[in-house]
Each structure stands twice: as C-alpha cells, then as structure tokens.
C-alpha cells in the first residue's frame, strides 16, 4: 500500500504497548512531504518509541506504517549517535554513504563535513570527538545518503546554546531539500523550525496539524493595551464586554486583555477604546509560543 502523494509517511492505529500509559497506543501519523514535522511531548510520551517503530528498530504490536519512499532514503539521527571510534570523520561519512548504496566522492565528503563545521576534523578519529561534534557528524552521515525523510530524535537536547543554534540552522537548511521529522521536548526549538506538529501524551497523539493552528486554537489571544491618562472607563467597558475573557490592570496605564478570539480582539479593542474616548498609545498582540499552547492543550484534557 502506498501513501497519498502529499504524505511521505503515515501510520494507522500504530500500537506498541509497554503498559497502560507507556509506549505508542494507537497513533495515526501523517507527515506531509516537504515539511518539518515537530513531534513534541514530555519525557515518556512515546516519542523515541514511535521513531523506533518508524525506522524498524522496534516492532509494532498492531497497526500499519506506510512509507512513501524507498527505505534506504530514510535516515535516522538518534539522540545519542555513536560511531566506530577508530574511524576518522571522513571515513564515517564515506561508510554511511556506502552502506546506503551511495558511495560519496571525496569532494562530497569534504562538503558534508564543512556544512556541519567539521572540515578541520576530517582526518581525526571520532573517538576523541565531543558530544556536539558527534551530533554534527551524525547529521553529515545522515545527509550524505541524500535522504528524502530524516528522523531526528532530540537532536539538540544535550548541546549548549551555540550548539543548539547550529543544529537548528542545519535542520532549517535541510528542510529545503527533504522532509524532516524532529522529536524534541524543547518546544522553543520545535517552534523555531517546524511548520507541522504532532503532540504526544502518554502514547496518544492528541494534536496533529499546522503549528499556527495549534497556537490559534489552544491559546486564547491576548493584547497589551497602553493608554495615556485615565483608563478606568476603558477597563470598565472591556470587563463588561462578552467577547473579553479577562482584563487585567497592570498599572501605569497598561491593560492586559484576553479575548475569545483573535478576530474579537482585532475588531473590538479599537472600537471599545473609541467608544470611551480613550487615548490609546499602543495595542500590541502578545506573542503565542508552543510551550504555552502545549500547556493549554494538555491542561484542557484533550482526548486523542
């Protein structure tokens, strides 16, 4: 069975149980071609198990996995990559390509290592590499096979801020030529590079879709409204409006207004200010982030 042409990978009723709330418990995954899919969830949610099932490193109890590409065009970067310690970085990249039937040229090896900042370490044995260097080498080893789908398990979790930024830049560059599925519990990282997200909780996929939809759906929009002079009339009017969920006086003429929807806020706030003749300095939407959306989603008790 082949997946729909717009999906590079899908699963149906995928189950691998390690107990009532552990493992992967009926996941219907849909990874659109050409996207960066962020798989998020707390530790123990089933992210690594799901990636293990997708790569064949674990077996499913039930369900199906439909891969829309040749299996050799799928690359995995595990959370703790390891290589033969007695090989050089160049040899690791050469071996990685050879094993998937794409032996690279010396120039290609050089370019792959340069892309991850390891050009100077090309002839060094990887046994002496730091964790960050090994992680970057794993990205080069994955890329040398020209994968169509790359699965990354917690690629930045053990890196320092500079290392995290470098890895995220590499993932963003990767997304221009392949589909990337990124598993992480660092939601800020996912938000930075992903355009589609799947939220796993205790083995269940409780949300799957565009990142922006998640932010819009599970975050009540809020604005910071700054008023010059008296603001009591505006405060009173907003608190009595049925489209306002909450209005807080933060002092100094600053109000925090949470509305039912983005549309309500964008249309209602200027009208309300005009109605009481308030001197509005600014109306600034508060930025939504994935972490807040994730907390709202999980707090809402959304059922899979």
């Amino acid at each position, binding site marked *: 069975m082949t997946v729909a042409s717009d999906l590079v990978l899908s699963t149906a009723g995928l189950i691998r149980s390690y107990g009532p709330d552990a493992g992967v418990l009926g996941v219907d995954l849909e990874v659109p071609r050409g996207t960066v899919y962020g798989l998020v969830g707390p530790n123990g949610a089933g992210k690594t198990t799901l990636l*293990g099932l997708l*790569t*064949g*490193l*674990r*077996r499913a109890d039930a369900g199906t996995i439909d891969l829309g590409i040749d*299996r*050799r065009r*799928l*690359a*995995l970067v*595990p959370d*703790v*990559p*390891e*290589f*033969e310690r*007695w*090989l050089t970085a*160049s*040899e690791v990249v*050469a*071996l*990685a*390509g*050879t*094993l*998937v039937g794409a*032996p*690279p*040229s*010396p120039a*290609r*090896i050089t370019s792959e290592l340069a892309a991850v900042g390891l050009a100077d370490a090309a002839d060094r044995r990887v046994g002496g590499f730091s964790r960050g260097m090994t992680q970057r080498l794993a990205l080069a*080893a994955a890329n040398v*096979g020209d994968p169509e789908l790359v699965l990354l398990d917690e690629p930045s979790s053990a890196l320092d801020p500079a290392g995290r930024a470098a890895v995220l830049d590499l993932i963003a560059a990767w997304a221009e030529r392949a589909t990337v599925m990124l598993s992480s519990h660092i939601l800020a990282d996912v938000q930075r590079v992903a355009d589609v997200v799947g939220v796993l909780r205790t083995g269940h996929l409780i949300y799957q879709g565009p990142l922006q939809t998640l932010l819009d759906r599970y975050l009540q929009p809020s604005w910071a409204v700054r008023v010059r002079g008296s603001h009591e009339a505006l405060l009173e009017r907003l608190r009595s409006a049925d489209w306002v969920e909450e209005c807080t006086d933060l002092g100094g003429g600053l109000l925090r207004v949470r509305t039912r929807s983005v549309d309500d806020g964008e249309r209602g706030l200027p009208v309300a200010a005009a109605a009481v003749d308030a001197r509005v300095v600014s109306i600034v939407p508060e930025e939504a982030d994935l972490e807040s959306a994730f907390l709202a989603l999980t707090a809402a008790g959304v059922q899979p």
Partner: protein
Amino acid sequence: MSASLSVPRLEWLRLWRTGRLLVLVLVFTFFGLLGPLTAAYLPEIIGLASQSDGITVQVPDPVPADGIVQYLGNITQIGLIAVAAIAALALAVDARPGLAAFYRTRQPHPLSWILPRWAATSLAAVVAWTIGLVSAVYETVLLIGPLPVGELVAGWAFWVAYLVFAVAVVALAAGLARSTVAVTVVAVVIIIGIAIIGVIPQIGDWLPSHLVGAPAALASGGAEPGDYVRATAVSLAATVACLAGAVALVRRREL
C-alpha cells in the same frame, strides 16, 4: 572518484587499527614458541625440582609431537578465550545502541554485518593460529626433532574448521546477549560445554571439540585424518547453524 569505505576495508581497519589482529598473533606466537621450549626442557625442569625435594622423578625424553601438544594445550584455553573476546568486540553490534542504530537503519538485514565480521575475525584467528603453529613447528624441529609435514597440514586444516566454528558460536552468543563481556562469557560457556560433552566416547568423535587434539594426534601417528572427518562435517554444519541462528536472533531483537 568515489571515496567509499567498503565492508572488507572496514573489517580490515577494525582488526588493524584496534590492534586486535596484533594481539591474536602475539598470543598464538608466544605459545607457539613457549610450547616446544617447555616440552624440550621439561625433563630437566622436573629433574631439578625433584632433586631439591630429595625425590627422583623419571620423565621420558620428549618426542617431536610433544612440542605440538604443549602448544595446543595453551592455545586451547587462553588462545580460544582471546579469539572469543576479539570476536565479541566485532559481533556484539547491539552493545552500543547508537552504533547499532547506525548500522541497522542502513543495512536492515543482520546477515549483511554478521557475515563479514564473522569472516574477518575467523580469518584473523586462522592467521594467528598458522603463525603460532609455524613457530611451534620451527622450534620443535630445532629443539626436539622433525615432524611429519603432511599430517601437520591436515591437523592445521582441522583446527581451521574448529576456529571458524568457535567464531560462529560467538556470533550466536551475540544474538543471545548484548554486552561484549556477556557475549564472550556465553560463547566460552558454550565452547566449554561442548568440550565437556565430548568426553563421552560415543558422542565425542562427532563433536567439534574432537578437532582440538587433531594436530598432535596426527603428528604422533596416533590417529588418521579420516578419524576427524565426522567432527569436521559436524563443525561446518554447526557453523552454518550458528550463523543462521545468530541472524534470526538479532533480527528479532529490538533496540
């Protein structure tokens, strides 16, 4: 131009850069040189020891086959443990999960990595065994006397069959256990277990462990090459069975 790192070259680098080939050759060569020396001077050594106790012990003069007996006695224990440990380092792929993921996601069928690792380690063991035997024969001829070449070649071949089987047992053990130490222990236990069962006369002649004494027995004229045909056939069949079992076990195992 391609810069591919072929699987044979990978296995060669594994043996060379890690020093594993050197260790095997040194172990077998050391005992190859020590064995005949011990055999040649055993009467003097025992004689000196017994004089100090006031007891006279008569030890017969050594014959050439004794040099080979001493060599085999040492490598059957320490040599085989060294082979098992070095084979386990190559064949226990799942001992390091990150490395296992590197190979398993690129070569999903375990045969593609078990077979070359078994072949390379077997070849290294055979090279070490051969150098050790040549050393033992050279020193035996020098210190004790000549050995029959044809019988020695036959004995060499029977030991090759045994070494190939022993490495296949390690491959099977790698399907039963994960860590390198555990794989080594399981393999050594299986090899010792077969040797213990081999003490039973009706069964022993059929088991791979029967091949261990072949070079010495043939060199002394106490056996004919035909006496080892059954054990050789069983060894080769068991080698194939161990490799098939290893592939099946590793294939079933999850990371």
